[in-house]
């Protein structure tokens, strides 16, 4: 199950058409193979094959509507919430195909946390936002819960700001604080993977910087997939970057490479143009 993969992997070479210059060293935690997602008649993306390394940050970039958010929600089966939505292909998570119908979805979602573009704390107190999901996953001991609340809030740099008002409504926090609370809520469940969908886009530059620093500081402990429209941000924090693009009305994976090469020597013209356009 936890087999170490050979440095050069078929999926990657098939994406770029060339061997990768730098061999990948880490174990693959998630392997998406030919994943296609349709909302009813409309195909959001087609045939995406993307390996995701353990304990690294993978950035997904691309124009609006190319299926980045949809791809993330496949990885924790949140796509199940949409009646029309159909996902085909296979996604191996730790060796198991999570698209099989009889997967334990609740446990999968605990292990693969998703943070949304718009901060979405539950309409409860700050403390309950953290303890309710924990209780749900079997942590009942109050003392243990309190310790946990403190430690995850410290992790996301929110503890000093909210320590005196843990029992006040979470929706009274500022946007940046809410987003960090959402990250805290996800990491409280001790997931293996964090999926972040444009976590900074609703925030001002300063809060955005704070959230970004927190994400970067989590890289050793979690496998992170982050969607961002901010190429500079991808360049700063991501180990690997992937570009999705709309072709024939559906999203496709254009290029996938270690971040340095992605930005310094892109293999595809679209990538070069996209980086250029976003820069200029």
């Amino acid at each position, binding site marked *: 199950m936890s087999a170490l993969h050979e440095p050069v992997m078929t999926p990657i070479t098939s994406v770029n058409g060339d061997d990768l210059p730098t061999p990948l060293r880490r174990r693959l935690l998630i392997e998406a193979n030919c994943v296609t997602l349709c909302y009813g008649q409309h195909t959001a993306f087609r045939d995406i094959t993307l390996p995701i390394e353990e304990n690294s940050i993978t950035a997904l970039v691309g124009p609006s509507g190319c299926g980045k958010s949809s791809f993330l929600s496949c990885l924790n089966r949140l796509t199940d919430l949409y009646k029309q939505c159909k996902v085909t292909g296979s996604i191996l998570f730790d060796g198991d195909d999570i698209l099989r119908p009889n997967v334990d979805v609740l446990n999968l979602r605990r292990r693969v*946390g998703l943070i949304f573009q718009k901060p979405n704390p539950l309409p409860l107190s700050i403390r309950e936002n953290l303890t*309710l999901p924990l209780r749900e996953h079997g942590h009942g001991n109050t003392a243990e819960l309190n310790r946990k609340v403190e430690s995850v809030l410290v992790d996301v740099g929110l503890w000093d700001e909210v320590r005196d008002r843990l029992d006040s409504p979470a929706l009274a926090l500022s946007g940046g604080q809410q987003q960090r609370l959402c990250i805290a809520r996800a990491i409280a469940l001790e997931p293996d993977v964090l999926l972040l969908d444009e976590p900074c886009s609703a925030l001002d530059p300063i809060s955005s910087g704070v959230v970004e620093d927190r994400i970067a500081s989590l890289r050793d402990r979690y496998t992170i997939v982050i969607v961002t429209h901010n190429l500079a941000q991808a360049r700063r924090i991501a180990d690997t970057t992937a570009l999705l693009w709309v072709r024939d009305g559906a999203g496709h994976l254009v290029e996938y490479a270690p971040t340095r090469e992605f930005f310094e020597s892109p293999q595809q013209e679209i990538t070069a143009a996209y980086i250029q356009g976003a820069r200029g």
Partner: protein
Amino acid sequence: MAKGRWNRWRDAIVAVTTWTAAILVAVVFVWLLADIVIGGIAKLSWTFLTEAPRDAGRAGGIAPILVSTALILAVCMVASVPLSLATAILLAEFTPADGIFGRVVRRSLDVLAGVPSIVFGLFGYAFFCNTLGLGFSILSGGLTLACMVLPLLIRTTEEGMRSLSDDYRRAAAALGMTRTTTIFKVLLPAALPSLIVGLILSIGRASAETAALIFTSGYVDRMPSSLWDSGRAITVHILDLAINVPGGTENAYATALVLVMALLIINSVASWLGQRWLRRSIVR
């Protein structure tokens, strides 16, 4: 130029009309209230609330009537609240808004809400009193009222849950929480204000009900000793004093005043509780 003047006139006419209508409604309400207060305040006293009626209600108080009414309301709420919560959750969370099943249930509830209360009374008499053998009793009356307020309770609760942001459902699902926890720990508390509105409306409707109760709870004005006893509801008492008892008008007024005040108190306490709850968990 002339056009501009006409437009101004039109605005003025609309404003005057709407204001007149609003003031008219307010005047009618104030008049009604004043009439009840003036007619009833003289008789109102602590003994009026704690004594049994004497001389067919001309003298004495309304204690047994208050107890019967409270018991009937309690039976009604105990029966209708859980049932309507369950139905509302089913409708709001487990059936699509435009599905066949949901549409059929919703339409039936709307029809039920429009049925005159006398029909509910007859149904209650036939079903609870006779078929189930509960006789003229507080239980029969309460259950009949429960049938009557069900549509109101279900629809307000359902609307309240549907109007909640889908963000909550997505957030909870992404945290691996079950539907059950999401509904009971997140959605229902957030929908509590609309639940309370539904509750206030149905308490109002139930305590104003007369026709359905004459057939089911009866009009014995003694203190009930159990739920299987007949009991006279407050509106039935007012009706009886006003129509059947010469010289009962003053007490009818006083009783009506008690009813109005009780409704006002229930209303404000419930909305205060709702506000407080809302402020505890959500800031607008």
